[in-house]
């Protein structure tokens, strides 16, 4: 009875507050953080959560979702999730590189290019085929070339990409349910932004998505679009679950220094537009400005004044946020936030975060090389990190020489290794590396380059081949420099609350460009032509030698029957000029003899002996005929 009353109460409260009880919510949030390097980091997060009894059942029982009546959740995406047994999906499309050393850790880290990792529900269907179909459907949805994901760049790492949403241990520990792939070459532009925006319930008609104008977005230093779907808890106690779709967009815009050297910024300046309407469907619409160390507005002032300040964390991980409620602030006119700095921006040494990693190629020429990763731990305790390297098969690794060298020999435990098979499977090298306190260690993987078939080269082969970014996952002892360390929350507001204690970070390194030995692509045609010419040149003489014999013969006036008649007619007319005829006759009888030399001909002496006689019988008879005729003529 009490339960029933409770349900009734909830139902009534829904009716009172919104007029009806929605089973889905939509929130939109924006974080603006001025970085020490003078850049401005802005992170949009649009979250749609959905809970129905069916969804709860699917999440709990690891079954496929079955949606049929969509409200705020985008149908185009929902159909893909439903059809391809997706439980958790993370897609990011990034342009530019996030610089951890200068900028700290972002809210969502993404490697340059496209990255997709998906946890599937346990199904009876062939997961590789499902994955292939899924990437094709997704590439249609976001207009990206995700269809280039195939078995050669897909892996299932053991430790690096554990489920971010709700998952029990038996599921989270079974990497056969997950697939990971990255396309470092993928370019991101408005054609990806437009379909991404279409998934938002308010589109770009109103709300924070109005700020997403392509021109300022794509002139930024770093730009990352992402789409995250996961089952997660509705509240802290996790008494009920919901499906959460987060659409995030991160930007780092260049130092917006004015002529006077101040780091002033405003919404108008950053996004070329102001906020005019709120999204009526959003249950929360907020803008946060990171004012850490500026609580008293000494460094810069904000106009308008923020509604409230949120503070969390302590010591070096203190975070202070100025919060604006856009729905309340928007009263007809446009809404703009302006930050005015008191003093000029001073570029100084930026203290590096706890852990940062850089990766590069060493070696010279096109013979061998090595991928070197440099881990720097600036903290006072040693760290163990998970290092994941996914490499294409055309780099042939030498695992026996892979080693780390530093002051103290630190161990490397390989947690998963998949060796490459040509044209079928790439390398997966996942290792746990121990980094001692305040030190730098280097790990190198030697490789040689394979020769590709000529059709396997991309259109601009001389540009080189991109190698996807490596992934480093670590649990840092403190939340210093970490943007988000409470991963279970749904909204940015809750995520930004700093929780003391160990914090999980996942970093992505630089992508690499390797040049492989590249042939001249007109080569096949040249080879065909050359080979054919050689064959033809060789064939001609061989054919001649074997089928024809070179013989000695007298060169004579070859007279055909026609010329003979002409000759005869001429003679009839010129009967009077005997003398002349005689002369002609003399010339004709003076037959030249030429000896054709053939080194292959053995009977050379014979040949000389028979010079006189060696004539064709027919021709001889012809000749006798001719002489008889001439005699007659005389």
């Amino acid at each position, binding site marked *: 009875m009490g339960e029933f009353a409770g349900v009734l109460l909830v139902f009534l409260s829904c009716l009172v507050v*919104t*007029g*009806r009880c929605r089973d889905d919510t939509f929130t939109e949030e924006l974080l603006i953080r001025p970085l020490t390097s003078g850049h401005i980091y802005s992170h949009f997060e649009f979250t749609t959560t959905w809970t129905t009894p069916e969804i709860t059942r699917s999440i709990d029982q690891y079954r496929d979702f079955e*949606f*049929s*009546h*969509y*409200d*705020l959740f985008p*149908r*185009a995406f929902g*159909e*893909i999730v439903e*059809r*391809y047994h997706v439980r958790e999906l993370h897609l990011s499309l990034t342009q530019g590189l996030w610089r951890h050393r200068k900028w700290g850790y972002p809210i969502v880290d993404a490697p340059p290019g496209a990255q997709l990792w998906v946890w599937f529900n346990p199904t009876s269907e062939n997961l590789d085929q499902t994955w292939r179909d899924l990437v094709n*459907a*997704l590439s*249609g*949805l976001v207009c990206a070339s995700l269809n280039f994901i195939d078995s050669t760049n897909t892996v299932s790492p053991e430790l690096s990409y554990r489920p971010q949403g709700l998952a029990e241990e038996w599921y989270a520990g079974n990497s056969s349910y997950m697939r990971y792939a990255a396309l470092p070459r993928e370019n991101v532009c408005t054609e990806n932004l437009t379909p991404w925006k*279409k998934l938002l*319930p*308010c*589109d770009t*008609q*109103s709300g924070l998505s109005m700020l997403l104008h392509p021109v300022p977005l794509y002139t930024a230093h770093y730009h990352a679009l992402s789409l995250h779907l996961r089952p997660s808890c509705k509240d802290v106690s996790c008494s009920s679950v919901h499906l959460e779709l987060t659409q995030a967009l991160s930007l780092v815009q260049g130092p917006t220094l004015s002529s006077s050297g101040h780091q002033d910024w405003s919404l108008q300046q950053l996004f070329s537009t102001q906020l005019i*309407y709120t999204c*009526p*469907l959003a249950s929360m619409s907020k803008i946060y400005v990171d004012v850490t160390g500026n609580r008293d507005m000494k460094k810069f002032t904000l106009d308008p004044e923020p509604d409230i300040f949120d503070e969390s964390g302590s010591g070096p991980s203190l975070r202070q946020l100025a919060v604006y409620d856009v729905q309340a602030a928007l009263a007809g006119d446009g809404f703009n936030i302006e930050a005015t700095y008191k003093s000029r921006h001073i570029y100084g040494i930026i203290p590096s975060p706890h852990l940062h990693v850089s990766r590069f190629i060493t070696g010279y020429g096109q013979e061998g090389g090595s991928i070197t990763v440099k881990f720097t731990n600036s903290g006072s305790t040693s760290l163990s990190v998970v290092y994941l390297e996914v490499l294409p098969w055309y780099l042939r690794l030498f695992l026996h020489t892979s080693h780390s060298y530093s002051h103290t020999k630190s161990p490397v435990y390989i947690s998963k290794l998949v060796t490459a098979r040509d044209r079928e499977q790439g390398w997966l090298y996942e290792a746990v590396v121990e980094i001692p306190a305040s030190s730098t260690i280097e790990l190198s993987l030697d490789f040689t380059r394979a020769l590709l078939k000529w059709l396997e080269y991309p259109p601009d082969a001389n540009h080189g081949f991109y190698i996807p970014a490596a992934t480093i996952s670590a649990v840092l002892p403190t939340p210093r420099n970490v943007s988000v360390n409470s991963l279970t929350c749904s909204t940015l507001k809750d995520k930004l609350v700093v929780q003391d204690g160990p914090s999980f970070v996942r970093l992505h390194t630089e992508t690499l460009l390797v040049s492989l030995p590249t042939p001249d692509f007109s080569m096949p*045609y040249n080879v*065909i*032509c050359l*080979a*054919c*010419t050689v*064959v*033809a*040149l060789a*064939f*001609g003489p061989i*054919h*001649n030698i*074997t*089928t*024809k*014999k070179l*013989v000695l013969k007298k060169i004579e006036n070859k007279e055909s029957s026609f010329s003979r008649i002409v000759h005869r007619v001429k003679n009839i007319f010129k009967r009077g000029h005997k003398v002349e005829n005689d002369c002609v006759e003399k010339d004709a009888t003076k037959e030249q003899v030429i000896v054709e030399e053939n080194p292959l001909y053995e009977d050379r002496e014979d040949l000389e002996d*028979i010079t006189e*006689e*060696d004539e064709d*019988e027919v021709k001889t008879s012809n000749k006798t005929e001719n002489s008889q005729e001439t005699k007659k003529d005389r």
Partner: protein
Amino acid sequence: MTKLVEEKDMAGSREGAWAAAGFAAVLVLVGLPVWWYTTTVYRAHLPYSTIVNLSGQPLYHATGMTLVGETTATLSVELEKNLRSMQGIKFQISKRKPRKEEIAMIKSAVSLSDLDNKLTQIMHVAAGTLAVFVVHEPDFFESNVSIIVGRHRLTYVKPGVDVQLLSTVIKSMVIDPLANKRAQGSKLLHQLPGMHKREAMRQVPTEPGYDVTLTLMVPEPHRTEIDWDAKAAVNEYLKPVVNQLESVTKLIVRSQVLYMSGLNVSPKWSTDHEHFALPQDQLPLTINAIEAKLGSFVWTRPSLHFVIYIPRKKQMPLHIHSSDGEPTETNSFLVPRWGGVMIHNIPLAKGNASFPHYVTLDSHWIMSTVLTHLHRLLPIPSLKETEGLKILPSLDTCLLTEWQLDGLARARVSYYLSNIHITLQSLCELVGEISNMVISDEVGGWVWGAVEEWSECGQAAREGRLQEATLYCSRSFTQADAAFFHPSMLALLYFPDNQKYAIYVPLFLPVSIPVILSLKMVLGLYWKPSPRKEKVE
């Protein structure tokens, strides 16, 4: 001396000729097969002749019809004569006298609908057949009515019924006449008068399944908050029809809400009617704006979209005007082969009411419009009550009667048959025309499968086994389509001929010319020696 040389020469030229013959032989016996096997386009064997044979097979449905009742022989003879003219359908009329229990049933029945239900239970009219019952009791018939069409497969007639009218009714019950014309061939379609042609083109192409998407469009969610339980509405109204159609075609129903996007219309205020008028000629433009948000990235089934549009406040109330300037009754329009759009006006908020304004939609109106549109998009036969004809109203208005389902199944089988015919025939033609086309074993297998099922389907249709025909045909259609649209068919299509010559000419020309020229010498082996010998002697 001369003789010796000659012999030597002879031997030499003979050797040469043999060598030339050897070259030619190697070229022909080794070169040609190698060239053939390396460049030939793989083609699985296709059943061309079977396809040609099946194309000529007669295309008709056998439809059994039982005439029950004490009648004169002329009724059945007349009926048979009248029905024989129908294209695509062959009636097999059988006649029998009513059984005792049937007569008892008629005597005891209270009303006609009661009789219809009870008679159907004891008569067991098989699927795909019809029964005409001659009822002598005049109480069931209102004045002027001589034919009553039941909810199942039974039709009741008065003894002295007009045979002409009865046969017309039966003809339009059996199959949708326009669908029948369309299935018989596209040529017939062009001969149709304008109105009918549009009507026939409206129906969606026949496929094994359809995605039905209900889209609620709320362009101003800040002003109005719409409360519409799509799930309940679908379960209540659409689900029974979907279940009914399951044996014929699969419908997958989904619904979505689109906010902040409206139809791209510019209605004018009509002072006569006190509302905004949307002229009919603007209708084709309306759906362009939302088409981008309706597609699916997953399914390749054709979609049927039903859009429920809540007009903007400044355009409220909005009504569709027909070409004569009068508002249409339904305030909705049908988009041929696409779906339907309905405009749902909502009561305006009072001047000083706070936003948003909560509105509950009229599910009954929406779903009955959707069902009407759905009926018109599918080739479902329908009857209109005319003089002398009465149709028993269905218990549930949205449900289809059994004879309608049979008619739909017949029309779909006819479409399938003509589609399979066209697909396979054009596949054969294409393969004949384009020599580069590869036919893999997979495609070949599909074609064989499609042909097999096609002949089964035609056979089943001719024997009146409607359900089997539907099953065979949909399988055959799927396979024929899969074969026709398989990506491997296009693999070599764009390999240009001049590139082939560029590769062949440098090799084949210098090699083949000497070989061909030396053939003269090879011929000499046979012909020349004899005359020469005579001369020598």
